[in-house]
């Protein structure tokens, strides 16, 4: 909101950065990958309690069948992405780090892409509670990367009311194009999913926010909306981190989420386009989430593109299919700004993984890895979208004043977008410091 909006009619937020976007795979249609011989399905692919396995060693499962159930309300079930036999349940590496229990599935060689297990349901006469229960049964989580259970997000806390559903089609991370392709190729499912989410949350209008480097998606979605629809499409400025929940609410509605608050505090629920397009597909058919679209890109990939990959596919298999080159490689799950690096090739693809990037040169040159002292240029201050003071926070982190950082400098409002580290001319790993500080504060609190 400001000068840019007045001049060009483009909505945006203040601060933020413009990294090189590298959206080279935007023109590549979504393609399926063949099944790997073995799938690794961690039970904690989502935020919340891990799922409870329903199968034992040796059990045969068909594609789509539930193999783990939700442990209570704050959890989601898991479905078999391929027909095969359960080899075992054991500890396997996960993208989040610590090894955790995973169901290992030997895929039958003749396994087809046909989904053999589904329970179609009539959606038109379901109440809000029934839709939310059905969403939990699909095992859907936020596919943008957070992996937060979708049904929890759509339950509005008591005493609050939601008037607007925001659909996040920004995809502000460099390289990633999977949401872009979903908007282009599955606009009908997306709009269907938006209607379900509106009914579940009680929102009366919906706004799809799309960055202005994806005007083709804006056109396609506008073309698919009927006149008088409560859903509208808005283009927003291409800027990182436009796709962050709080930034997008500010850009589209000019509402500000209070510190430590939720979007529901300002009457908004935000969902990712991939999540809602998935719900549009899965809910009427009564299926579970068994595959997702990821962007495989980066200078080290031979055949970059957008691939529909079964959950649990090991990184190694994706790389074999797409091909990669270069000796000194760095593998990143998700976008380059916030995605974690992978340290094991048998790490499986999980529900929250939106991309696999291979950067074959060291992303920063060896020499510039050195950390120089802060020169107080305040570039980080003018980049921080949350209006924090990363420079001050960084100096306090060096002195281990973690509690003071949270109390006096609003450390907990930092959502680790990495803008401060990106702009720092002294190469100070600010966001890493803040992650450590937040982790230690969390541990001290318990």
């Amino acid at each position, binding site marked *: 909101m400001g000068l840019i909006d007045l001049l060009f009619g483009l909505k945006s937020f203040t601060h933020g950065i413009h990294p090189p976007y590298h959206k080279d795979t935007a023109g590549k249609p979504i393609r399926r990958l063949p099944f790997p011989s073995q799938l690794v399905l961690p039970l904690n692919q989502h935020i919340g309690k891990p799922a409870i396995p329903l199968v034992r060693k040796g059990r045969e499962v068909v594609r789509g069948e539930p193999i783990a159930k939700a442990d209570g309300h704050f959890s989601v079930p898991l479905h078999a992405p391929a027909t095969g036999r359960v080899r075992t349940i054991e500890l396997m590496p996960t993208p989040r*780090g610590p090894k955790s229990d995973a169901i290992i599935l030997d895929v039958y060689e003749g396994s087809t892409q046909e989904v053999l297990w589904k329970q179609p349901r009539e959606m038109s006469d379901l109440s809000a509670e029934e839709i939310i229960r059905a969403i939990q049964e699909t095992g859907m989580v936020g596919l943008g990367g957070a992996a937060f259970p979708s049904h929890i997000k759509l339950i509005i806390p008591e005493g609050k009311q939601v008037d607007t559903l925001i659909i996040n089609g920004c995809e502000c991370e460099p390289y990633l194009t999977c949401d872009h392709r979903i908007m282009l190729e599955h606009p009908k499912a997306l709009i269907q999913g938006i209607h379900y989410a509106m009914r579940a949350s009680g929102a009366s209008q919906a706004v799809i926010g799309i960055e202005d480097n994806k005007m083709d998606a804006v056109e396609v979605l506008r073309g698919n909306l009927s006149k008088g629809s409560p859903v509208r499409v808005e283009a927003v400025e291409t800027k990182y981190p436009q796709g962050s929940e709080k930034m997008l609410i500010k850009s589209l509605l000019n509402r500000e989420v209070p510190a430590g608050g939720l979007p529901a505090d300002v009457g908004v629920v935000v969902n990712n386009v991939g999540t809602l397009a998935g719900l549009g597909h899965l809910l009427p058919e009564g299926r579970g989430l068994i595959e997702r679209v990821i962007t495989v890109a980066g200078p080290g990939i031979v055949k970059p593109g957008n691939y529909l990959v079964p959950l649990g596919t090991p990184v190694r298999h994706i790389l074999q299919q797409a091909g990669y080159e270069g000796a000194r490689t760095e593998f990143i799950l998700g976008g380059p700004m916030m995605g*974690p690096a*992978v*340290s094991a090739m048998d790490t499986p693809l999980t529900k929250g993984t939106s991309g696999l990037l291979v950067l074959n040169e060291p992303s920063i040159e060896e020499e510039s890895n050195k950390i120089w002292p802060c020169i107080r240029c305040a570039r980080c201050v003018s980049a921080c979208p949350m209006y924090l003071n990363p420079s001050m926070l960084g100096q306090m982190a060096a002195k281990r004043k973690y509690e003071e950082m949270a109390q006096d400098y609003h450390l907990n409002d930092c959502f680790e977008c990495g803008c401060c580290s990106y702009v720092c001319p002294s190469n100070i*790993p600010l966001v*890493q*410091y803040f992650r450590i500080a937040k*982790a230690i504060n969390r541990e001290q609190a318990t």
Partner: protein
Amino acid sequence: MDIEIAQNVTIAILFMGVLGLLLSAMLVFADKKLWVFEDPRIDEIEGMLPAANCGACGNAGCRPFAEALISGKVSPAQCTVSSAEAISEIADYLGVESGDVVKRVARLACAGGNHVARQRARYEGLESCRAAAVVSGGPKRCSWGCIGLADCAEVCEFDAITMDHHGLPVVDAVQCTACEDCVDICPKGLFSIQPVDRRLWVACKNLEHGDAAENDCEVACTACERCVKDAPEGLITIQDNLAVVDYSKNGLPSPVATERCPTGAIVWLDDDLGPIKGVKAKRIVRNEALPL
């Protein structure tokens, strides 16, 4: 004219003098009226304490500990930083027993140096275990093991922790004051404060079983249960594929339990010789770091 100046100056001096007298009288009055009795021994004892304010004794600092000493709530030996002479000096001063407190030290539940623990990736970034742990759990294949970037050595205020040439922290039992700083900083939770007389020690946290554990690290506990069978009944149990010693049965431990351990994950800690592995433990002759 000169007289006028002299008068003004005199008045000013008199005024300030009277004001000063009045205010000092108020201070004297306040001092007498608001005076609180404080045991002079507190200052004395505080002087004898090391002024480390580490909190290892369970008090907020050295002065609260001195107060607790005088009220008889604690015994002098509970200060883990003071030397034996200093403790007996305090005990003599107060006329109490110095108390019999077993020295406690920080112990690391990992023996996976870079010559035995396999690395799965190269970590590049902030030289800190905490930062490395955030990036998919660190570069080691064992996601429970020591990362080896020396956060503990850096945080230790008593220089009790040094890194050996395999990238593992070594605790100097003499210097260690059991202040728990290393316990708090370790992202893998490998440090714990243990009384030195607990000599049977499982130096592993790997929750995997058998070959899977040994593939991660050559000195991992494989949960083979030999130590469970060799030790007196109930002393060692296997919990989550890891041997756990029940220290409440402190009269029972002996080096017998370590003898048949195939990897040497369970050790007998000797004051002079350090950790002693069992005779059946696989000998590690390699000295250099394992390749990636």
